[in-house]
């Protein structure tokens, strides 16, 4: 097993600090979910981990070897990003065919047969130019590049943005198939958390340039609860625990709790329910910003 590590990463764009002393470890052989609000720093973190952008401070290593400009390390990584239909000069007129051919040249383990299969599956016309593709097709192309790269650590940034529900289901099945067959590591950064939550063995939550948590999804959820009931009863039941996103309805109150360990009981006077990943994420993020 290998580990892709980022230690004490800081990234500044001018005066703006986008990543504030972030440390993360990615172990191979797992499917990771990377969740966070827009602008939280997910894409920046991924850029740094894959040496696509330089870190202002901090180290990125794969098995102890720095990733920056390192052929060996880079050959194990694929970070397939959203392709922009616009370049500085105007529309991006690169043909899909050329884009895929470039991928073939640079990804060491590129599987052309698999790429062709996926092109057919997603019904892409490879002669089309990138600026003429629909959002869904653009997403499909980034997915094709990610999968056909056959890279040991494959990262997808918002892969399902623009895909309709049928294509999204297709995508999840492709990931499961490929993971089951090869054990490749996938890191999927997404907003559509609930659909994909069951795929993530580990989840990394980013908020405002910091990593809020990185753990095994199931263990995390086994310590998350939604405690509800009479306001006073709830308050006393959850005292001593970290609670988020209090919701009030008259005398009734509900609060999301994330304990350090699974809790046997909160007492008889309150109702306790498990929390889904998306709702936990919402509760934790909403709370930080003190939004309505």
């Amino acid at each position, binding site marked *: 097993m290998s580990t892709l590590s980022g230690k004490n990463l800081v990234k500044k764009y001018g005066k703006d600090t986008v990543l504030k002393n972030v440390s993360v470890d990615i172990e191979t052989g797992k499917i990771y979910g990377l969740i966070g609000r827009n602008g939280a720093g997910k894409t920046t973190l991924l850029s740094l981990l894959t040496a696509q952008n330089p870190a202002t401070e901090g180290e990125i290593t794969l098995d102890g070897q720095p990733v920056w400009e390192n052929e060996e390390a880079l050959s194990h990584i694929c*970070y397939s990003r959203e392709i922009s239909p616009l370049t500085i000069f105007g529309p991006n007129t690169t043909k899909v065919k050329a884009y895929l051919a470039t991928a073939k040249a*640079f990804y060491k383990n590129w599987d052309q047969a698999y790429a062709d299969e996926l092109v057919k599956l997603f019904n892409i016309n490879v002669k089309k130019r990138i600026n003429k593709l629909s959002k869904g097709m653009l997403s499909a192309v980034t997915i094709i590049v990610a999968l056909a790269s056959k890279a040991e650590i494959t990262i997808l940034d918002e892969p399902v943005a623009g895909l309709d529900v049928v294509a999204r289901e297709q995508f999840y099945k492709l990931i499961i198939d490929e993971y089951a067959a090869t054990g490749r590591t996938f890191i999927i950064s997404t907003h559509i958390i609930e659909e994909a939550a069951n795929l993530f063995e580990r989840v990394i939550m980013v908020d405002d340039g910091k990593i809020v948590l990185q753990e095994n999804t199931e263990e995390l959820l086994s310590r998350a609860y939604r405690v509800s009931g009479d306001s006073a009863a709830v308050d006393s039941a959850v005292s001593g625990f970290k609670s988020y996103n209090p919701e009030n309805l008259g005398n009734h109150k509900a609060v999301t709790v994330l304990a350090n360990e699974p809790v046997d009981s909160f007492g008889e006077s309150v109702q306790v329910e498990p929390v889904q990943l998306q709702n936990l994420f919402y509760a934790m993020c909403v709370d930080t910003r003190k939004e309505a």
Partner: protein
Amino acid sequence: MKKSLATRSNIYYAVTGLKLLGTVGACVLIMVAEFFIMYYGDDELFKYQMNTLVMLAMMFLVMFNGIFSLYSANWTDSMVLSMGARRKDIFRGQIIKTVVAMVLGTGVVIAAMYLTDQMDHLRIVIGMAIAAFPISALFYALGHKIRKFGKMGFVVIIMAATIGGILFGLNAATPGNPLAAFVRNLNTGAIIGIAVVLYLLFELWAYKLNKKSMVH
């Protein structure tokens, strides 16, 4: 056994150089067809036009090479970086692309000149070929710099380069033109010297910018 990243990268950029040639070749062929239709039979005029054609061909070559460099700093670099290329592969690749395009392209032009008895312009053609190198490096560096200006920056540079190039090329081709005479009389050594110095300067600038390149 899969080739190393450096090798695959070199091949990719060499092919880019060939594609560049193809683009230039297409433009030139159109002009050739036009010229042949218009001027074949009138020997004096024909020779003069062939002259112009050769100059224009070289100019297109140098110009397109520059444009490809400009474009690379903005899109191709980003695409290739995002696919695992190293910055040094990209830097080396720029040089390879220019070498492939200029050597082969100039070779074809010289062959054409030989066949149409214009070898007296050889110095100018070779001069332009040499000039392509610092121009390519300059445009690559400029490409990085104009990112902030967006489309306008690109348009301005292209227009400036095109106008400058056309003026220079046509003037240099016209016999009797003072610029042509000046260019012809320049010491070969001086030309090469200046070109090399400029080339090294621009490449250094390009190298520094390349080292910091990011995926956009």
